[in-house]
């Protein structure tokens, strides 16, 4: 395969272009798509390339999602942009009561090929209404599939798979990774849902993580090599379905686990993974399972406050030291 460097945004646009060319039933609906190419520019070029298939709406989240659902029920493949994951709350009834339940409720008559794309995450001083990581809500909701990749290669492959999926997908992307570059093959490819990926092999401890925390985990893994701790970084990529096999494989190898996400610790996805590990792999554990997550407070605006609330490289390192009972160096 011939690789070239693309940003996450470019990878996403490319994925949408390819899919929309392949399948005329795909259309994009959301706010500020035509004039703006999307609030973060992930749709730049698409309105021109596919006139009439990129639809600007007034600010009506409830109806944007609901409309996507109706279209999905009647033979279309909508790709819904919600601007910010925080705005899923304006359409919670549509997502939780309609999109997630209709197929089941109607005895499997319907298929709902909808992708709800929601940029999430903090770190941009966007304050309490534009910074949340809400994946746990949707992992908790039967009927939804949840994706949250971090690298351009994964973003492109998973966007394509999500669009082709006949089930509703909540697709999260961290706002901070949009402009991050990474290698993407020129050839067409897709990545199956529910497959995790080892981003850094190790033997002493596994950091199970996803989205932006993968980047922090990789930095920590490098630093720890100097200290003789070989960290394995497991990027889930798809949160639901969860790649339990990969997790079990890695835990059985390293016997030590840290689960890290930017969402707040309490009832975060880490709690679920951790519970499953101790239930099924108790005898493999050589240390307690540690979790890394944000404080249970809304994301504050001021940079020092925000940095304090959300977990990063340092909290990961501290947790590692904690796990190995090392002294935390006071610098």
């Amino acid at each position, binding site marked *: 395969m011939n690789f070239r460097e693309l940003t996450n945004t470019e990878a996403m646009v490319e994925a949408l272009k390819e899919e929309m060319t392949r399948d005329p039933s795909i259309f994009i609906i959301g*706010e*500020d798509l035509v*004039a*703006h190419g999307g*609030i973060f520019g992930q749709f730049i070029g698409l309105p021109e390339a596919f006139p009439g298939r990129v639809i*600007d*709406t*007034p*600010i*009506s*989240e*409830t*109806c944007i999602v609901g409309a996507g659902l109706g279209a999905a029920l009647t033979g279309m493949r909508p790709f819904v942009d919600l601007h910010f994951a*925080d*705005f899923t709350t*304006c359409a919670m009834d549509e997502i939780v009561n309609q999109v997630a339940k209709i197929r089941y409720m109607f005895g499997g008559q319907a298929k709902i090929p909808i992708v709800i794309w929601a940029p999430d995450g903090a770190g*941009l*001083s*966007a*304050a*309490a*209404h*534009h910074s949340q990581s809400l994946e746990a809500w949707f992992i908790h909701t039967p009927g939804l599939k949840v994706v949250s990749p971090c690298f351009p290669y994964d973003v492109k492959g998973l966007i394509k798979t999500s669009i082709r999926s006949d089930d509703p997908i909540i697709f999260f992307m961290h706002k901070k990774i949009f402009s991050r570059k990474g290698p993407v093959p020129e050839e067409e490819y897709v990545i199956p849902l529910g497959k995790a990926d080892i981003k850094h092999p190790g033997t002493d401890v596994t950091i199970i993580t996803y989205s932006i925390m993968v980047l922090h985990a990789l930095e920590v893994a490098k630093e720890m090599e100097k200290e003789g701790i070989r960290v394995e970084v497991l990027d889930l990529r798809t949160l639901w379905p969860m790649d339990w096999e990969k997790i079990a494989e890695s835990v059985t190898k390293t016997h030590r686990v840290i689960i890290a996400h930017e969402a*707040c*610790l*309490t009832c975060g996805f880490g709690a679920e993974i951790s519970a499953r590990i101790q239930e099924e792999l108790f005898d493999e554990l050589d240390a307690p399972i*540690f*979790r*890394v*997550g*944000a*404080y*249970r*407070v*809304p994301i*504050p*605006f*001021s*940079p*020092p*406050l*925000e*940095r*304090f*609330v959300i*977990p990063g490289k340092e*909290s990961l390192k*501290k*947790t590692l030291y*904690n796990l190995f009972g090392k002294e935390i160096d006071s610098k």
Partner: protein
Amino acid sequence: MKGEGFMEEDTKTWLELYRLMVKIRRFETLTGELFASGKIPGFIHLSIGQEASSVGVCSVLRKDDYITTTHRGHGHVIAKGGDVKRMFAELMGRETGYCKGKGGSMHIADFSIGILGANGVVAGGFPIIVGAGLSIKLRGTDQVAVCFFGDGASNRGPFHEALNMASIWKLPIVFVCENNQFASTTSVHYSTSVKSIAIRGEAYGIPGRSVDGNNVLDVREAALEAVERARKGEGPTLLENRTYRLRGHFEGDPQRYRTKEEVEKFSEKDPIRQFQTFLKNQKILDEKIDQEIWNEIDQELQEAIRFAEESPFPQPQEALKDLYVEEGESLIERRLV
């Protein structure tokens, strides 16, 4: 423009209105500069061009009246009597800010003067204002609650739900739509199927009135009528101030959705320039006074900026406070390190 046969009283008030509009204009301009120079993190939405709406409406409100404002709310806060020191401090994320640096530009509130807060969610203010109106009714005071919102919000469900409830309960509310022609990038002519948003009053059996939002005296007059109606317990009014956002949706907005020409055309209708000319024609304002006003305001704002810049950032631990009235780690769930 209005103003024939005005009283001594009026001239004072008018100069005050003018002063406030200038204050907002300068505040926003300086904020834009501070943002450009990287002294303000996050993103900001400026209300340059909409000063007449903020000032016209708030000038007929009492200190104990309520307002909810929007992501484009600096003007409303200043017009309602907000402290520019604490505003700048908040914009810069300092501990002396209105929200101790927790809120930022989009989330400024001052409950002591009835500002129930700006909101990052479009139309987020509607349900809140209904609650405020209801409590006024329940407490039997003669306060009034004003909900500022944009043309974009008028297509959101909460608009509908709020106007309906306010109308059936005859709540003392004035819904002020600042129709600045754009919901972010989307033109109101595209997003709304009716000529004037004021027409939507008919869907709730409440008066809907549309005025030139760049004429502070027109706004003031219409607002006065609506507020008096509300105080008398005759229920809500839907007021549309037709104005124009001269700056982008947020600082850094490429503004591909409109032409330079259009913006220039509208800057001729600049509310401040209009009012300035009017006051000069009325011999209420001359170059000298005008200069003084602008200078005084600049001094005040420069002090405010200095105050903000000299204020410290909050202690990191501050991030764990104010979530509940009851303090305590058990409530915020410490991280495992």
